[in-house]
């Protein structure tokens, strides 16, 4: 990839993959950084966990931010650990006042410690809790308003959750405060077979679905031309296939800009 120097505007990496002290991984990241802006996308800070934020994880992230000087730093609206045990997955929160208060205080603390505004991403979920009282879009909007964080809007995750839990994806997008959205994610999902209900899994292993491209256009109309990333990190295809997906998103961004002009 470094040799081909692909014509893409920026790259995003998983922050934790570069928590190492030295070696090839960091050398490669430095080389990419010399030519492109980088976005750091974390999967392990576990902001929604009841236990304290991991000081070690925050310190590692802060050090990486100092090294990379990223354009964006993002994390997820989820939890992943309890009592020091990590499940290393993006797990669903109940959307309650208690969880909202916790997320607001954790995001505020992390932003203070990192001296950065964080982007929080909506995640795909495969279950909801009976005691949730706040619709997801309102929950993330309130989090942004109270903590000052920005939103990484994953349009595929909205589509996946709308299908899995039976809500209206367009209404979701319209409930997001447009000025807080600073990045969009697109990805492919897989459909779980043999179940009595529709269930989509956010697998990052396939091209973006047509319905998701349609929602993406709607999201652009709502939020404006926001930097957009294609997530494809399982069953990764040849680079030209990835670049073609990325070009498709760029085309829609250009289309939006042309219409807006």
């Amino acid at each position: 990839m470094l040799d081909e120097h692909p014509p893409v505007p920026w790259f995003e990496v998983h922050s934790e993959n570069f928590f190492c002290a030295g070696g090839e991984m960091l050398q490669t990241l430095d080389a990419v950084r010399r030519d492109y802006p980088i976005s750091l996308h974390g999967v392990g800070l576990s902001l929604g966990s009841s236990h304290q934020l991991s000081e070690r994880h925050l310190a590692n992230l802060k050090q990486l931010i100092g090294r990379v000087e990223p354009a964006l730093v993002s994390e997820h609206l989820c939890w992943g650990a309890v009592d020091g045990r990590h499940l290393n997955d993006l797990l669903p929160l109940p959307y309650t006042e208690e969880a909202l208060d916790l997320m607001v205080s954790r995001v505020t603390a992390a932003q203070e410690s990192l001296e950065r505004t964080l982007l929080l991403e909506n995640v795909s979920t495969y279950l909801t809790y009976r005691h949730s009282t706040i619709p997801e879009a309102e929950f993330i909007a309130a989090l942004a308003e109270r903590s000052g964080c920005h939103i990484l809007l994953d349009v595929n995750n909205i589509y996946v959750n709308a299908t899995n839990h039976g809500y209206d994806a367009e209404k979701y997008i319209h409930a997001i405060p447009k000025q807080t959205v600073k990045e969009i994610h697109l990805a492919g999902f897989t459909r779980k077979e043999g179940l009595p209900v529709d269930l989509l899994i956010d697998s990052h292993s396939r091209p973006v679905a047509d319905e998701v491209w349609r929602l993406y256009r709607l999201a652009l109309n709502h939020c404006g031309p926001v930097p957009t990333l294609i997530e494809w990190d399982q069953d990764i295809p040849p680079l030209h296939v990835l670049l073609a997906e990325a070009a498709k998103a760029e085309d829609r961004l250009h289309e939006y800009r042309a219409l807006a002009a």
Partner: protein
Amino acid sequence: MNTAPSLLNLQADFARWMLGERGLPLPEVVAGNGLAPAARLQIYQNIIFNNLTAALRTDYPAVLKLVGEDFFESAAARYIREYPSRSGNLQDFGAAFPKCLAAMPEAATLPYLGDVARLEWARQESYLAADAAPLDAAALASLPEDQHATLRLALHPSLRLVESAHPIWDIWMFCQEVAPQRLNLSGEGQALMVWRDTRQLVMQPMAGGQREFVAALLGKKPLAVAHASAVTAESQFDLTACLHWLLQTGLITGYSTNGPTWVSP
């Protein structure tokens, strides 16, 4: 859970359920929405086990080759349950897998398995370790003789010494894509040095005085002590040649003649 659980209780139960505990009130708070609540939880359990197993597969390719997919998966499942992940960084997860494998009754017929795993974890640690500039040979050569007695050497942060009562170098080589056709599992024990040479991992079998010398330096012993134990192991041990090789390979990265004060390039 007739009333809504606190977030802490919900997360604690969720983690227990994922690691295999049943009889918890957790399914009662999950909306079924056309499926059994337990079926929805099961989706998460599968994803979690798949993710963590995939991380182990990346860290332990030789172990996977030795035991095959089915055994590896069940060993991984045991590891996930008995040694829960303690970090939000998946790179940390596999640290205790060698210990888990060595203690598995099902692996008792493969007494070398834990040691091969230790070698693979040393490779992982070495790959991710800090960088350090090599020390110039002239810096050591110019030290006044009266400082030799207290001299200590700092070795490259990526350097690991893995020792086994089994032929782990031969076994590891046998697991590679281009592998020797025959393997004698009951061969003599082997020791290996693992380090990172700019980008690539390098492994080198170690024996005799050289092995003792590097082990002592890794144990932070003064050069004179390391030299003495190398000579005890091998009366012909050539200190000059060994130091020359370590310097040339870039594995000596600093020195100290005065306790805690280290000099590095």
